């Protein structure tokens, strides 16, 4: 049964990678990153249940805090770039290209 949870976590992580590398919409890319963080959380909780220790729960808490900070910053950047460029395409966001 433990393996089923881990396999589900791997499937969700691979779907997140697929969303990041195939879509060009900024919001979809950002939400795919959130999906990958959730898959990592599921693996943490599953291993914590397997070893019956609490450390995985604490790590999942940390991941949630980092995801909240990342959501705040990334959405601010998206609003700023939408104000400057008026688009939601990741291809026009290559401002730092040398």
């Amino acid at each position, binding site marked *: 049964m433990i393996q089923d949870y881990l396999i589900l976590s791997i499937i969700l992580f691979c779907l997140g990678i*697929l969303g990041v590398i195939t879509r060009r919409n900024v919001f979809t890319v950002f939400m795919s990153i959130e999906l990958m963080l959730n898959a990592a959380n599921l693996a943490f909780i599953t291993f914590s249940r397997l070893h019956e220790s609490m450390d995985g729960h604490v790590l999942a*808490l940390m991941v949630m805090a980092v995801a909240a900070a990342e959501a705040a910053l990334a959405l601010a950047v998206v609003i700023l770039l939408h104000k400057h460029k008026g*688009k939601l395409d990741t291809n026009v966001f290559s401002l730092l290209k040398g």
Partner: protein
Amino acid sequence: MFAEILFFGFAALSVLGALGLVFFRHPMNGAMSLVVTMISLAGLYALLSAKLIFALQLIVYAGAIMSLILFIIMFLNIAESDLPEEARHWIYLAGGVVIILPIGSFLIKIVKSIPGGETTIIGNGFGGVKEVGLVLFQDWLLPFEIVSILLLVALIGAVVLAGKRRTDK
């Protein structure tokens, strides 16, 4: 037996939500299917008897972060013409599947060699607020403080970025 039925129901719902996120064109539909994934993951945490994480997944992820994303999507008022046209979408998708599939099958093969255990609900306060809090404030105190600094920096950065006015025009 009942827990296995619940597990397969939640697993199918979460995979369907993730597929919807990858395949829907409009980000609002994608955000809605991501909410389905978050809520079914909360159910899976409850099946793994992680009570605190179950509550936090519902409150923080499905409540706070997803409503923030939905608010920003509604704030930008995205029409169909604002979306990038993804004409060669299917070529990228096929290439991505070709890259991802070997890695995923390799990871699944590794995971199957892990000695399995039963996932029955265990008592003794496993995953409750008190136990997680004891571990958090005894063994993980320094990372906890660092996370608080990270949240402060992200907050100030978001305010500075979103509130900046262009003066060079």
